């Protein structure tokens, strides 16, 4: 179970983390903790799955790869086969079933931007269903913070 210290750590360390020789000591001081306690707590929160990550969060497009959101409309009877085929593509990073006519939504990540089209075409030809491409055209303010 999370306690107040966990809550403080999660709330405050979503804002950022120092880059210096002893960053845990610097961050801990601000939170009224010790370096050792902060390191121990972060380890436990990661182990328990309360945190999915701790560290630098990379802005994927900035790396020069291709990235898009794509969706498909697949009849229920064919869904499991198509899921298996779509998931088999290494370029498919995340895949969700959603409650909509467009019932499969996945993220494609390719090494180079121009490869996105080829991967979409390959998924269409192997599944037999059209893939709708939803590339990000503009990004608005991102709230990466979640209050707990």
């Amino acid at each position, binding site marked *: 179970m999370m306690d107040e210290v966990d809550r403080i750590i*999660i709330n405050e360390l*979503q804002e*950022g*983390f120092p*880059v210096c*020789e002893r*960053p*845990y000591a610097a961050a801990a001081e601000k939170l009224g903790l010790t*370096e050792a306690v902060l*390191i121990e707590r972060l*380890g436990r929160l990661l182990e328990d*799955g*309360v*945190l*999915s*990550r*701790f*560290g*630098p*969060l*990379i*802005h*994927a*497009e*900035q*790396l*020069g*790869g291709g*990235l898009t959101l794509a969706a498909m*409309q697949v009849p229920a009877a064919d869904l499991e086969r198509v899921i298996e085929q779509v998931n088999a593509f*290494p370029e498919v*990073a*995340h895949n*969700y*079933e*959603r*409650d*909509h006519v*467009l019932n*499969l*939504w*996945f*993220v494609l*990540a*390719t*090494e180079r931007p121009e490869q996105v089209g080829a991967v979409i075409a390959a998924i269409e030809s192997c599944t037999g269903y059209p893939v*709708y491409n*939803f*590339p*990000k*055209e*503009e*990004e*608005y*303010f*991102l*709230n*990466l913070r*979640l209050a*707990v």
Partner: protein
Amino acid sequence: MNAVLDSGDPPSALDAVDRRILIACQAGLPLVERPYHAMAETVGIGADALMQRLRLLLARGVIRRIGVVPNHYRLGYRANGMTVWDVPDGKVSELGARVGALPFVSHCYRRPRHLPLWPYNLFAMVHGHDRAEVAGQIEAIRACLGPDCRAQDVLFSTRILKKTGLRFDKDQGGGGAGTV
């Protein structure tokens, strides 16, 4: 801002050392007293050089931030809805900025329509403890859009079918622990 940041370097401006750093970042920050020193050892450069490069990567936005990423589901945010909106193209930037600033919206993007199946051009991910809370958030977004909201829908995920880190090859950047 210094000259490096103002030059509008394309993504390809990342050099081999930057790429090694970003690969090392994927494992998360080591939980030791001097984590950047540990990371520098992995990358094969000095700790001061590594920290300087991290600061630059942060300033350029290649690294969005350093910090914790909570597991929404484990924290009780069980209803994660993709809300989608049809708003006039000429106003989408202004409206998107407004919606994106709402505290319960984590990501807000403009994406293309696919008519007639998909009339929506504004996507906003919202997070609530249950669907009733999300319904309230949708009302708040609707109020924020006012008469510019022409149609709206929300898609909840019913199954996670695959969730891996984005691919990130050693020779060519392709992802990492990023946001889409």
